[in-house]
């Protein structure tokens, strides 16, 4: 009996290489699925296409378009790595009766950690400091190499989803004053647990924050959310940290 015939067919873009699934993940996946590589699919005859019941979307690949969806008659579900879904046409996928899943919980702690890492590195001038400490010819200028205090500063979180909330939990331990702006206000207990104050108007958050952390999903509403006007509302001493998507701000506005 061939094991391959019993396991459901899972389409992946490639293994290894630039954007492929990681080699040490393959063993695990092969226990549950019959892996079908995109290259094989493109070269094969009809029967491989019929075998594909699911797509494992890693690093936004393979690209899900109408042609692909039409060629996979038995496709039931697409699993997306990470939490952002802005690279997908969700309506198109739904129109084929295909279910969609992402992996929000898996990424939330790591992404919150990255947000804090960026905030701290920027405030304390870590990269610059590393260059001063390690570069061969640099003038060692210790005394006046000063950064900005993180403890006790004001953090404004734009987008208080699961990642934004984890950032608030971390920032609270740094005794930061936390403001947040979100489509909907969080429950009182959730606000109290992190000491976060709701800013219904984004402007109120922007005027007060020493650090502005952008943690929204990319949607038509958040596209270019932070533009010239918003940046001018920010303090001249403020730092902007973006861990959501690049298109949330207007590139030409960054000075």
């Amino acid at each position, binding site marked *: 009996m061939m094991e391959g015939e019993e396991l459901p067919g899972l389409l992946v873009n490639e293994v290894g290489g630039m954007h492929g699934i990681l080699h040490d993940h393959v063993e695990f996946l092969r226990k549950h699925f019959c892996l079908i590589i995109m290259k094989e699919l493109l070269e094969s005859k009809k029967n491989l296409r019929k075998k594909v019941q699911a797509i494992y979307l890693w690093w936004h690949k393979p690209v899900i378009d109408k042609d692909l969806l039409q060629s996979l008659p038995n496709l039931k579900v697409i699993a997306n790595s990470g939490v952002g879904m802005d690279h997908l046409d969700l309506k198109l996928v739904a129109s084929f009766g295909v279910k969609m899943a992402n992996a929000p919980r898996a990424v939330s*702690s790591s992404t919150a950690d990255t947000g*804090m890492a960026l905030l701290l590195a920027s405030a304390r001038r*870590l990269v610059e400091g590393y260059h001063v400490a390690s570069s*061969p010819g640099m003038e060692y*200028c*210790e005394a006046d190499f000063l950064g900005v205090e993180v403890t006790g500063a004001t953090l404004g979180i734009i987008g208080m989803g699961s990642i934004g909330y984890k950032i608030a939990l*971390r920032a609270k331990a740094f005794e930061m004053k936390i403001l947040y702006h979100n489509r909907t206000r969080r429950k009182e207990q959730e606000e109290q647990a992190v000491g976060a104050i709701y800013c219904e108007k984004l402007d109120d958050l922007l005027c007060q924050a020493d650090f502005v952390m952008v943690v929204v999903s990319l949607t038509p509403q958040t596209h270019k959310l932070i533009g010239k006007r918003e940046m001018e509302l920010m303090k001249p001493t403020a730092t902007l940290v973006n861990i959501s998507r690049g298109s949330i701000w207007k590139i030409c506005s960054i000075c």
Partner: protein
Amino acid sequence: MEGQELPCVLIDCIGGKHGVYEDHAEFLKERFCLITMKEYLENKSFLGKKIRAIYMWYHKPVINEELLQSLPNLKIVASSGAGVDHLDLNLLSSYGVKVSNTPLTVSTDTADLGMALMLASSRRLVEGHQMAISPDTEYFPANWLGAEVSGATLGIVGMGIIGYKVAERAKAFEMKILYHNRKQRNKEEERAVGATYCEKIDDLLQQADFVMLAVKLTPQTHKLIGKRELQLMKPTAILINISRGLVVDQDALVEALQNKVIKAAALDVTYPEPLPRDHPLLKLKDVLITPHIGSATVKTRHLMKENMTESIQAGLAGLPIPNEVLL
């Protein structure tokens, strides 16, 4: 003349690499008659008698017996920062001179920097930044990974004010916290940060994903982390030092990193500072070094200046000295 009424305080210099900041000097001049080391050396016999305090910024001016003998009216030395390992406390005491430091003001910034170094090292921040801005970068590879901080095990060696603040921060990252200290903290303090005491440092070293050094430099902590300790650590572990360079046997650290005995090191402090430009630590890929910036924020430096001023004023008035360092 105003200058005659204000007490005379010796400083190294104003401005330059290690001098008192220009904007701090203004504040100090309102309260003291500042005498720079240069001025003092040009007029030792006259100025020596007038100096009643030393404002020690960045460990300067260097205080030795010769200086103490020439300052008969010296009452107090106010030293910036928490560490006093650069001072001969016994010598100062023998001359009846009081000493103060600024342990509390530096604590949050130093704890913040400890967290910054841990996150930056673990998540390969400097490398990532370089890749993101490099003119040669065409794509970001999918297999470029760091190690997770959230949920990992942090071992804090030295659970004083700074070590405890690190624990408070690490708890929010859901880290498992172990600590080693001369004395165990009380139960409420341990519970508040979820920290487990390791009476033997070996137990901490064997379990920790991150080892953070936050001890004072004393004869007991000198080369506390040597070849033996590094070999006890996990090969995936990262060593973070926010205490003093001499707490680590630096040669042993170089060897351990070269042989992949531990994964990486993130150091705000080294010995000496700065390291000679051809030092092997500067050539190793998995080493992040910062130029002793633990307390280097604008706000904290102002607070330090204010604390030191208070200590000097109290010392000169014969009042109890805030932040006095006792033998």
